[in-house]
C-alpha cells in the first residue's frame, strides 16, 4: 500500500509538480477526513479519557489530603501522649521525692523515739537494780542483825550456861556483868561522844 502510494506519488511528481500555494488551500476531502479523525480523537477523549484521569486525580488528591490530615492528627495525638507521659513522669518523680522525704523524716522520728525509749528503759533498769540492791542490803542488814543477836545470845547462853552452874558464880558473873555494863555505859558514853555520828 505504502509503496504503491509512493510509486503513484513519483508518477504524479513526474507528470505534474503541484504548485506551492496548494499547500495552503485545503481540498474538501482533506477537510472531511480531518474532521473524521478529529472526531475520532475528541469524542473518546471527552467521554472516557479525560474524565477517567480527572477522577483518578481527584481521588488521589482526596487520598493525599486524607492521609495528610490523618498524619497530622496522629502527630497531635502523639504529642498529647508525650505530654501526658511527661506529666506522669514528673508526677512520679515528685511522688518519689515526697515519699523519700517522708521516709527520712519518719526514720529520724523512729530513731529519736527508740533512743528516748532506750534511755527510759536504761533508767528504769538502773532504778530497779538500785532498788533491789537497796532491798537486799536492807534484808541483809535485818538478817545480819537477827543473826548477830541470835549468835550473841547463843554465845552468851553458852558462856552463861556453863558458868552459871553454881549460884555463887552466877551471882558473881551477874554482878560483874552489871558492873561491866555500867562501866561500858560510862565508857560508851565517853567513846560515843568521842566517836559520835
Amino acid at each position, binding site marked *: 500500500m505504502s509503496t504503491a502510494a509512493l510509486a503513484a506519488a513519483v508518477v504524479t511528481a513526474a507528470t505534474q509538480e503541484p504548485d506551492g500555494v496548494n499547500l495552503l488551500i485545503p481540498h474538501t476531502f482533506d477537510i472531511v477526513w480531518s474532521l473524521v479523525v478529529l472526531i475520532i480523537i475528541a469524542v473518546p*477523549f471527552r467521554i472516557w479519557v*479525560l474524565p477517567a484521569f480527572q477522577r483518578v486525580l481527584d481521588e488521589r488528591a482526596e487520598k493525599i489530603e486524607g492521609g495528610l490530615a490523618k498524619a497530622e492528627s496522629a502527630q497531635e495525638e502523639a504529642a498529647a501522649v508525650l505530654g501526658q507521659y511527661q506529666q506522669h513522669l514528673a508526677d512520679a518523680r515528685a511522688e518519689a521525692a515526697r515519699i523519700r522525704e517522708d521516709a527520712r523524716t519518719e526514720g529520724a522520728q523512729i530513731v529519736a523515739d527508740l533512743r528516748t525509749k532506750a534511755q527510759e528503759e536504761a533508767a528504769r533498769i538502773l532504778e530497779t537494780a538500785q532498788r533491789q540492791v537497796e532491798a537486799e542490803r536492807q534484808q541483809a542488814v535485818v538478817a545480819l542483825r537477827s543473826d548477830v543477836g541470835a549468835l550473841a545470845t547463843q554465845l552468851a547462853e553458852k558462856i552463861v550456861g556453863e558458868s552459871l552452874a553454881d549460884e555463887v558464880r552466877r551471882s558473881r558473873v551477874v554482878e560483874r556483868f552489871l558492873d561491866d555494863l555500867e562501866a561500858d555505859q560510862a565508857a560508851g558514853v565517853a567513846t560515843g561522844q568521842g566517836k559520835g555520828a
Partner: protein
Amino acid sequence: MLPFAADQSGTGGFEPPSIADFFPAPVLFQGTWLEFNRIMLVRLIAALVLVTFMVVVARRARLVPGRTQAAVEMILDFVRVNVVNEILGSERGRRYAAMLTTVFFGILAFNLTGAIPGLNIAGTSLIGLPVLLAVWAYVTYLSAGVKAQGFGGFVKSSLFPPGVPWFMYILLTPIELLQVLVIRPATLAIRLMANMVSGHLMLALCFAATQYFVVEAAPGLKVFGALTLVASLALTAFEVFVAALQAYIFVVLTAVYISLSVEAEH
C-alpha cells in the same frame, strides 16, 4: 543540490523530496469529497492508535499509577499546569482544559507520524487538519469572549483597546479586527503546517541523499553517506522535538487567545 538533480533520470538516482509528497495519489473514492490517500490513512492510523492507547490507559487508571499511566499523567499535567493554569488560571481554565488537552494530544500524535518509519509524513502537514484545529481554537476563543463579556463588550474590548487616544482607533481597530478574525487562526494553521512540511522535506532529503550516496554514488562520495545518515538520525530526533514543540505552541497560543478574549483589558 543542482548537480544531483541532473541525475534524476532513468531508474533510481537521487530523488529529492518535493511538494508532491503532500499530494499522494488517491487510493479510494478518487475525485469525490471522500477521496482517500496515504496521508488520510496516516491520520486515521494515528488517531486510532492514540485513542486506543489513551482509552486503555484511562480504563486501567489506578490511584497508584504504573509506568505508562504515570507517563501519560505527566503529559496531562504538563498541559494542565504549564498551559491551562499558567495562562488562564486554574479557576477560569477549567472550562477549556479538556479542549486544550485534546488538541495537544491530537497535534502531538499527528506530528509524530512524520518521524515514525513507515508512516513518514506528519498528519498535520496537509493544511486541512491544521485549518480545522485552528477553526476549533477560533470558535473556542470567540465564544469564550462573547460568553465572558457579551457580544458588545467583547467587540468593544477587542477592537477598541482601552487607554489609547481616540484617533489611534482609526489605525488600531482595523488591525485588531484583522488580528482577531483572520491573522490569529491563519497563523495557527499555517505555522503548524509549515513546520511539519519543512520537517518532512529535511528528513526526506537526508534519507534520499543517504540512500543515493550509499547505493549509487561514486565510491569517493560514499563517505558523505555517513554524514547524511548521521544528519538524518539527528533530524529525526529534532523532528520529534519539533512535533512536541509545535503541539505546545499551538495550545499555548490558543490559551492566550482565550485569555485575551475573556479579559476585558489586555
